[in-house]
């Protein structure tokens, strides 16, 4: 199993870096309109911070910060945000995923679509970050505390 890293420098640096990397992930999510990036890339970076925590600070620290079951639910919630943003279209008489009819006070026309893109990018980021974290956790601790598949 993945242990806490021996070097105190590694541990300290990772502890200090993680919030900044997460901040950068949010930047990537929100700046996808203007530059390369978006929900998917931001979500992967967000997931990477938890992988980093596991590698440097050990599984115990990761378990303290996130619970896998909750992460999976977050992933489902992310996809739900995207889906429900899409379903708002039919509820307001337009096609599925037509953001032009999203109820945003004070904004009209294409900028509403831009905001719609932002909403679904947030959904994408949650969905991707959650799913990738679950995949990593499950692969990394497969076999931990279980009997082997008998032949």
């Amino acid at each position, binding site marked *: 199993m993945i242990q806490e890293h021996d070097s105190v420098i590694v541990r300290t640096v990772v502890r200090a870096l993680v919030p900044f990397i997460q901040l950068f992930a949010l930047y990537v999510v929100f700046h996808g309109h203007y530059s390369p990036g978006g929900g998917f890339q931001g979500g992967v970076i967000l997931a990477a911070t938890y992988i980093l925590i596991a590698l440097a600070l050990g599984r115990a620290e990761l378990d303290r910060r996130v619970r896998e*079951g909750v992460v*999976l*639910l977050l992933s*489902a*919630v992310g*996809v*739900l945000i995207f*889906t429900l943003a*899409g*379903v708002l*279209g*039919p*509820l307001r*008489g*337009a*096609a*599925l*995923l*037509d*953001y*032009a009819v999203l109820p945003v006070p004070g904004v009209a026309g294409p900028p509403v679509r831009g905001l719609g893109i932002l909403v679904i990018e947030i959904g994408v980021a949650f969905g991707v970050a959650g799913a990738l974290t679950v995949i990593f956790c499950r692969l990394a601790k497969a076999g931990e505390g279980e009997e082997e*598949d008998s032949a």
Partner: protein
Amino acid sequence: MLSDHLPPFLAVVPLLGALLAPLLGAVRPRLVHPLAVAAGAATAGLSLLALREVLARGVIRYHLGGWAPPWGIELVLDPLSAFTAVAVSGVGALALLYAGPAAAGREGREAPFFGLALLLLAGLMGMIVAGDLFNLFVFLEVASIAGYALVATGGGRALVAAFRYLILGTVGASLYLLGVGHLYLMTGSLNMADLAQRVPELASPRVLAVAVGFVVIGLGIKMGLFPLHGWLPDAYTHAPPAVAALIAPITTKAAAYALARILFSVLGGAEGLGRAPLLTVLAWAGGVAIVAGGVMAIRQTDLRRLLAYSSVSQMGYIALGIGLANPAALAGAFLHILNHAMMKGCLFFAAGAAAARLGGPALTDLRGMHRRMPWTTACVVVAALSMIGVPPAGGFFSKWYLLVGAVQGGQPVLAGVILAGGLLAVVYMFRVLEHACLVPRDEDEHAGSDPALERREAPPGMLVPLLALGVGILAVGIWNAPIVSGVLGFTAR
């Protein structure tokens, strides 16, 4: 409001069910199975509604996000796709109901299990209504990935079978995507209707032929078309009964439908560009599949493996009908999509029930089944008659239309193959019926005769979907004429 948005909701409803499954599973795990059944039933209900709407209003084209094709993604519901959607979601919903008791003993795993089952259904429904080649690929991958994981829940050999399924399935999906890429490179479009306009003007027939070849091989792997069926027997044999009952009847059908859709709506206007020889190859591949699958089915001693090879054979009928491409043959192919989904569902439901009650998947374990499980046995008999092609079971009529199509298409050899396939089915299904109905169980020889005491039908949750399919097979047979003329648009005279 709902009837205007049927095309996307056919996939979005099971998808919502799959997203809610883990959330519900965290608080009330017991309610996950009812949720899955409800989502499946709602999908089937929407499919029926869609079929009614399409027959009343004509083809429904849906532009997602309000973007006109070819820039946005288009969904298309026509009589054929609505019909396939009804077949897939109907049998899928029954399989979800069946999976409840069959999946018992996996406490704590209900949420991911039924979540993946609903994702599989959502993927297949999305493939059926897709009007965009890339959108079809993405839905295909949802269904495939859910399928790999579900097969692997069998553990042991199922893991190896699932890995093989994953490798071959990825080759199939990737070759499909490569074919789509070739079409895109030469036309600049991904929308099926737009491509149909642009394909006849293509500069290079060679690229078109290669592109369509990749699409056919890719979807051929997914539909288990001989000789690309390598993943199918092991996956169906080693998957847990509840999974085999879900995957075996419906996954190959959606791929077969997608193949027909691309061959006819994208390449419909491309007669001169190599479609005709391609269809001939497909028809003959189907013919070879009918015989090869049947011969291999005869040699099996494990009921599930026998059914798997029978699927290879029966998918051959569908490929043959698509390849012949005349109205009678196509009506037969589509009717067979429904019939085969129902009879293979029925037989895999029965196989799971028998394995639970009689102790094993070998043919010899079925002995004495008619005394212990009379209703299940009756359904097996009905499905077997349909497989062989005995009226009034539905299978007779699909094979009849295929036969008419083969004769009309001037292919007497293929007509002979259709008949020979029926004879092979007689042999392999008789081996099932022989053990289930005629050979007594060893202990029955000396135990007295008190059938009431030893009757052990499967629990109602498994028996009800089984009976529904048994009755359905007969109903399709009896009402085949209105289905074929009213839905599939073919009139015999």
